[in-house]
């Protein structure tokens, strides 16, 4: 009786097709990917003693190694600062071109965004490997890798900021016949400067993290020493490098966070 005014459920709802479908898909993907990656829980535990040995040796950091790695740590930060800056310089024109409220030419904008999307797909270590092949081992390859990596990231962050600006001042200047460059300088930049700097610092944080491992492939900085210590099974040194890296990254994060709070 009470059921009289119940709506009819479609068969999709009645048999929970969506829920069962998603669950089945997930189970299939899980089974498929464990097969493909030879995941074997037993193997991990049967080799646990080796892993434990590694952990034990890493938990005895060779502190005297600290003096060796201070210089490369500094180099790492310098690489990150330079790479981020170069990337930003190139990102600004691309960001302006990609902003829908400044550039009305759809084709130009679309092409620009496509380039930026493509740049962003490339993982940093992969770029590092290629640039080491081109420029040889050293921090040059690292700086260029970081520049390209931050270019992709910053241009996207920037054009998204530009698209949110207040168009009032722009229209006012356009109506009095100001040139594009003048408009950008006087009406766009003041509105976005703080956010630009904030995103720059944020990217710098990410680059400091990234730069610590680039050296693993020969692109300069602390990563070179990381690779050396691992190759020599000198895990005490590895531990010191990782700890020092973590401390540096946290300090940079702290400074950058503080500056960003001041800015916004």
């Amino acid at each position: 009786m009470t059921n009289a005014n119940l709506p009819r459920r479609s068969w999709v709802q009645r048999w929970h097709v969506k829920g069962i479908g998603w669950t089945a898909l997930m189970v299939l993907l899980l089974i498929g990917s464990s097969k493909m990656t030879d995941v074997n829980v037993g193997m991990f535990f049967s080799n646990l003693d080796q892993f434990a040995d590694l952990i034990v040796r890493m938990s005895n950091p060779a502190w005297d190694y600290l003096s060796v790695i201070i210089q490369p740590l500094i180099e790492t930060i310098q690489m990150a600062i330079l790479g981020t800056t170069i990337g930003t310089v190139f990102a600004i024109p691309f960001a302006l071109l990609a902003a829908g409220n400044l550039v009305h030419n759809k084709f130009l904008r679309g092409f620009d965004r496509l380039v930026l999307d493509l740049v962003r797909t490339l993982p940093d270590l992969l770029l590092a490997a290629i640039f080491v092949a081109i420029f040889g081992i050293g921090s040059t390859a690292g700086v260029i890798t970081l520049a390209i990596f931050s270019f992709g990231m910053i241009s996207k962050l920037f054009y998204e900021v530009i698209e949110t600006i207040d168009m009032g001042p722009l229209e006012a200047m356009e109506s009095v016949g100001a040139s594009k460059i003048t408009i950008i300088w006087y009406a766009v930049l003041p509105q976005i400067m703080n956010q630009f700097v904030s995103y720059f610092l944020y990217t710098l944080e990410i680059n400091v993290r990234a730069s610590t491992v680039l050296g693993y492939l020969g692109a300069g900085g602390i990563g070179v020493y990381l690779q050396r210590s691992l190759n020599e099974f000198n895990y005490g040194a590895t531990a010191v490098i990782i700890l020092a890296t973590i401390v540096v990254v946290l300090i940079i994060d702290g400074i950058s966070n503080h500056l960003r709070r001041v800015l916004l």
Partner: protein
Amino acid sequence: MDEHLATFLRGAYEMEQAPIISFKHVSKVYSNGTVGLKDIDFSIPKGQFLVVVGLSGSGKSTLMRTINRMHEVTEGEVYVENEAVSAYKGRSLRTLRRRIGMIFQNFNLINRSSVEKNVLSGRVSYYPTWKSVMGLFSAEDKQKAVASLNRVNMSEKIYARADELSGGQQQRVAIARTLMQDPKIILADEPIASLDPLTTKTVMDILKRLNQEDGLTVIVNLHSVELAREYADRIVGLRAGELVYDEPISAVTEADLNKIYQAI
């Protein structure tokens, strides 16, 4: 003595004899020193439609939540059906809460779940944990859910997702969920504050019907004096945690109510 008056007085006397809720010198001071409630002392007879009015921050919500122990009092005692609520613990506290339905300003539904699931969740305290968590509700309770939805005229939306409904519809679903508890008391904390005038009337009418047809004791916190006068059997007013007004509806005057809202 007039016969009608005699019946009325006897009724009133009986009501007085069996208050379903009574506050005995209830005070609440928050840990930061803010006074929430100050020496509240009154009783609510069974079957009353009580409206509590007062400014926001006057302690209405706190007062309501001391009844089902969602808030603890710091002094005094609240009695529900002559039992001190502070005596309840764990399982017995949950059965106390089962007897007291609660309706909220923001409906508090699970947005992405179906109406049916939301309504059935009102039944949790009748089920062992594992059954309710797996969604294994009995056929009778599913029937009951339909019946509850019928009472608020929402059964045709039983398979809809909660966030597809309008505010008024969501509140009606929330009432249906509360009915699943088989409550003796309904607490409604600003139930219409997020609704438009038309749906406000629907929701208030439903509450009134539950009060009159099922004999439920209904306590409603309201901002609106007009609505209070339209629906209440009795109005109490709070100001800064103190009970400053308490009159049956027959004795309420516009002037009185305006006083409650006057700043101190």
